């Protein structure tokens, strides 16, 4: 079975992870722009981070047979540094039109401050201007209120719910998110957000419609195989295969395809290899359809 992990921070992961993900059936991933743990002190750090999301990381992932997409946005925590936030907003037009950008995100609330709300609203307007879906990060603390408030604001800006993914849901928030017509994403992240046994129960209870499973694997203790592991657990526990396909692959595809940048044919039916200069980099990438694992027969020998 093929999987999409529509929320993973692979910039923080190694090539071993890419190999394991490809071997487990992950065909495409989305890397939302987010917090790096270490707060950024100037706009140059954002610029280089965004550049790596639209450039080198896409290239690196492809070498392991994985198609990489991203979302671009000013995250909620760093929205609280107003001077910096202003400069980040200024450079966002340089990045939103890039070819692998499938949404504005992840944006939303952390502490639910006035500044967080200001930049959430500005970025929602920006998403409308460039015609992209939105990925919403919901807060760890005061989650229910933060989630509801995010949806209220989105509705004030008249963005239709089918263009919005609300992420990091749990048993407490998902009913309302689904009721209002949004995509409800769940982060399978050890010990904190959602475990995969709980996830199985949620799919059994609510069905597969508009539910999306992701890993959010990042620089913390997390699991880049969370989506395939959850998909396999669902099958083991009697969830029908088509429900697994929807929650671990097809719903993500449908949610981000309005961007025009997220097409199944990109990974199922890649363009033919073209030897000419312009596409030769791409042909290297597509040559990596099957993950390239050049293990010597005797692994004590390094050739």
């Amino acid at each position, binding site marked *: 079975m093929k999987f999409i992990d529509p929320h993973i921070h692979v910039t923080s992961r190694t090539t071993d992870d890419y190999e394991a993900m490809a071997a487990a059936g992950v065909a495409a991933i989305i890397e939302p722009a987010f917090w790096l743990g270490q707060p950024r002190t100037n706009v140059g750090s954002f610029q280089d981070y965004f*550049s790596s999301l639209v450039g080198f990381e*896409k290239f690196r992932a492809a070498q392991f047979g994985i198609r990489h997409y991203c979302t671009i946005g000013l995250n909620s925590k760093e929205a609280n540094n107003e001077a910096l936030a202003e400069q980040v907003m200024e450079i966002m037009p340089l990045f*939103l*039109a890039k*070819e692998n950008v499938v949404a504005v995100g992840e944006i939303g609330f952390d502490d639910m401050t006035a500044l967080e709300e200001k930049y959430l609203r500005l970025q929602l307007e920006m998403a409308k201007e460039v015609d992209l879906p939105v990925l919403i990060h919901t807060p760890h603390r005061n989650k229910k209120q933060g989630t509801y408030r995010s949806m209220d604001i989105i509705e004030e800006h008249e963005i239709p719910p089918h263009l919005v993914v609300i992420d990091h849901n749990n048993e407490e928030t998902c009913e309302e998110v689904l009721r209002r017509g949004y995509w409800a994403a769940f982060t399978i992240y050890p010990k904190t957000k959602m475990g995969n046994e709980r996830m199985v129960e949620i799919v059994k209870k609510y069905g597969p419609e508009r539910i999306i499973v992701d890993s959010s694997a990042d620089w913390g203790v997390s699991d880049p195989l969370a989506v395939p592991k959850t998909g396999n657990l669902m099958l083991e526990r009697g969830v029908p295969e088509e429900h697994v396909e929807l929650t671990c692959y097809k719903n993500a595809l449908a949610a981000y395809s309005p961007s025009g940048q997220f097409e199944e044919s990109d990974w199922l039916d890649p363009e033919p290899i073209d030897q000419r*200069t*312009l596409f030769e*980099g791409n042909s*290297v990438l597509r040559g990596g359809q099957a993950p390239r694992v050049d293990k010597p027969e005797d692994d004590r020998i390094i050739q």
Partner: protein
Amino acid sequence: MSYTPVQLLENWILRQASDAGQAWLDTQREAVATGDLKSLYMSFGFAPRKVGKADLQLTERDLNDAAEARPGWMPHTWTIDQAARVLLLMSLPSEDDAAFYATLEKLFQTAEIREQICLYQALQLLPHQELFDDRLCDGTRTNVKSIFESIAHNNPLPMELMSEQSWNQMVLKALFIGAALDPIEGLDRRVNPELARMLIDFAHERRAAKRPIPVELWRVAAPFADEIALEDMKALYASGEQLEQSAIALALVSTASDEADVILKTNPEIAKRAENGEITWREIAQQAY
């Protein structure tokens, strides 16, 4: 009748773009011409969505027109969005060279891979090229082969702008990463003893590691081959694979030295084919990669 690069790009796009794409491009070029940077940044990004990503369908005549409009310009690998992006860049006011440079650098710094390829190929048609020699050298340090090739291949700027040291590094790196040498413009014109020495050293490293030596290496190393290099070539000419033998024959023929003649005589059949032009570097490059 000869055309300017702008006229050629406009014609090529006109032939292939939809009316809507064409209208969008015209509007954006007007906005960019007023110095509106936000329009430049957004339209540069959106170009593939508006005019498509198809290959430019160019005839022999188009390619001749291109070479006449800008010597060394070889757009046979260009795509329609690339042409549109270059027209947008050519619309940008350029009287103030510092401001022009700063805007281009901003685009370089934030470009994704296809955009970088486009920018490196675009420079040959833009004003103030001399300001970008550091940028070219910096670009060749990339790990991304397609970006490296956008600078090294079918691009006259390295030949025109790069110092000997940067040029030598570029040629050596091409061999390292498996990029062909044949599409490097000015390759035979800018050979030099230091480059030949670097390549011979490289050949020896490869031999020590029991890895194959790229066959095109001999084209650049042969004109300054010392005794050791000639020994290497002699050995490969006797026992190498067919492609290696062909490459060495061609390399030795072009040096026209006595030592080369001695080696060539050891396998006169291949030597004759090389002398008659039955073997070309282009074919060798095509077979090698």
